[in-house]
């Protein structure tokens, strides 16, 4: 195709302009990828906490099994509870041993007697957490109530802040990259004004003139998107081992390659749209 050849020549002959266009696109898509990872990750973390037993009630040693069963039925009768799981002293010991299997000293110290039995309760709606926790606190069987409302609400607040910052930043960067692209393509059109005039005089159609510029915009967009995505993905893969340790069993990582490729595809599409819109604006502005 002759317009691809023309576009390639245009790119090659002004490498700094091409570099500027690709850099700003890279930056934009780096930000898009980064915030996509962050938002996807944090929403998974929230999902995890939301689906986990959100209230843990530890029973006093003197609590009788039939009282505990009665309490369980009472909780289920409210209709707000998704599940109630009884963890006996022996179960608790198992969990404890599992968590501390690398530390024999700690294992020796603890027996099933020391550990309390407990209920792990999750609610259908996160708002009902405090209600349930109040009920449990009042019960004479319960010695202590721990619930993760704080964790979830803090996370939710953070996620919504990240989303706002991310969207603002991405919109701003997209606008800036569009302005830069319009300027760069505009400069290129101005530089070739004479050539364009000659081609028009010998019978070139407007689209024949426009296509190379539009194609150039698409190329800048897609190259920038691929580089931005590659940097963000490489960073993510590199950080995966550390993050896995940090997140301790929360199933956020590793991200599947399919999802990464889908992200790349969407970004490339967005980049092509961004590129073609910017160059079309430039063409409208500078080619009459």
């Amino acid at each position, binding site marked *: 195709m*002759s317009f691809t050849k023309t576009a390639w020549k245009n790119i090659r002959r002004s490498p700094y302009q091409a570099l500027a266009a690709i850099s700003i696109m890279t930056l934009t898509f780096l930000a898009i990828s980064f915030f996509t990872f962050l938002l996807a990750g944090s929403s998974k973390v929230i999902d995890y906490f939301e689906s986990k037993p959100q209230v843990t009630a530890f029973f006093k040693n003197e609590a009788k099994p039939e009282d505990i069963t009665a309490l369980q039925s009472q909780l289920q009768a409210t209709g707000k509870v998704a599940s109630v799981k009884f963890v006996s002293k022996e179960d608790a010991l198992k969990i404890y041993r599992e968590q501390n299997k690398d530390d024999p000293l700690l294992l020796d110290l603890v027996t099933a007697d020391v550990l309390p039995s407990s209920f792990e309760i999750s609610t259908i709606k996160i708002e009902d957490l405090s209600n349930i926790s109040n009920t449990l606190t009042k019960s004479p069987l319960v010695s202590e109530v721990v619930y993760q409302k704080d964790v979830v609400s803090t996370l939710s607040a953070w996620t919504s802040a990240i989303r706002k910052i991310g969207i603002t930043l991405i919109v701003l960067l997209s606008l800036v990259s569009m302005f830069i692209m319009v300027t760069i393509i505009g400069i290129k059109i101005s530089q070739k004004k004479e050539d364009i005039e000659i*081609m*028009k*005089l*010998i*019978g070139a159609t407007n689209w*024949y003139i426009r296509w190379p510029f539009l194609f150039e915009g698409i190329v800048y967009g897609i190259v920038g998107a691929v580089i931005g995505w590659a940097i963000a993905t490489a960073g993510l893969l590199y950080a995966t081992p550390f993050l896995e340790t940090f997140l301790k069993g929360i199933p956020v990582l590793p991200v599947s390659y399919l999802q990464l490729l889908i992200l790349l595809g969407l970004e490339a599409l967005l980049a092509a749209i961004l590129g073609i819109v910017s160059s079309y604006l430039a063409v409208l502005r500078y080619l009459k």
Partner: protein
Amino acid sequence: MIKLDKVSKKFGTGTFGLLDVSLVVEKGEFVFLVGSTGAGKTTIFRILIRDVLPTEGTVVVNDWDVVHLPKNKISSLRKKVGFVFQDLKLLLDRTIFENVALPLEVTGVKIEETAKTVEDVLAQVGLLEHKDKFPVQLSGGELQRAAIARALVLSPDILLADEPTGNLDAATSWEIVKLLSDINKKGTTVVMATHNADIVKSLGKRVIHLEKGKIVDDQVHHSHANPHKDQNSEEHEEKSEEKKLSEAKSSSAGEKKEEKSSSTGEDKKE
């Protein structure tokens, strides 16, 4: 083939580039357009390829109503009318071959398929051996041929040549005119703007004489016919004009452009 009916062109400055010009050029004719700079030769050409629109009048080229031609048909018109520009308008970053191939390229013909056509045309103008050179490597006469080759490559029905001998010595000028004459013999209508009186007189073709945007004379000049008095004085004028031109050329290009457009008011391209 070409028909201008009461065509006037008024420029933004208020001066008339053309005033009430009517003329008909039949298919296969060879016509000279003469007159001093600013007489309106280039303006007629630019109107014919719809580079500018006339203020009044109707223009018909090849059954096309040029004035009312829809925008998307302009490129079709320009492909049917070969134009040798006064300033040639060759692309300096392309070889002669690529320059001549350009009209084919913009038509959407693949480069590989154009090679034969381009080489034929280059052979016709005698430039085949220079096809891979760039414009800066060629002489004035060769560049003129290249421009003619580019105008011919789409086999147009009409060839417009604007001062194709303007910057050339007498011998080279004759070669160019001979080339145009050969092209005409193959059936292409040729309109050539010039102020080279020698060529006009000796070729014995139809001559349209423009002065200040009006046709002052339109007749066939027979070879060896005695030029009447007016012609002589005109010739004299032309010479002084040429002198001025070379003077202007020695000064800077920018100055030249400015002086031209202000003094002629006709055409920035001159």
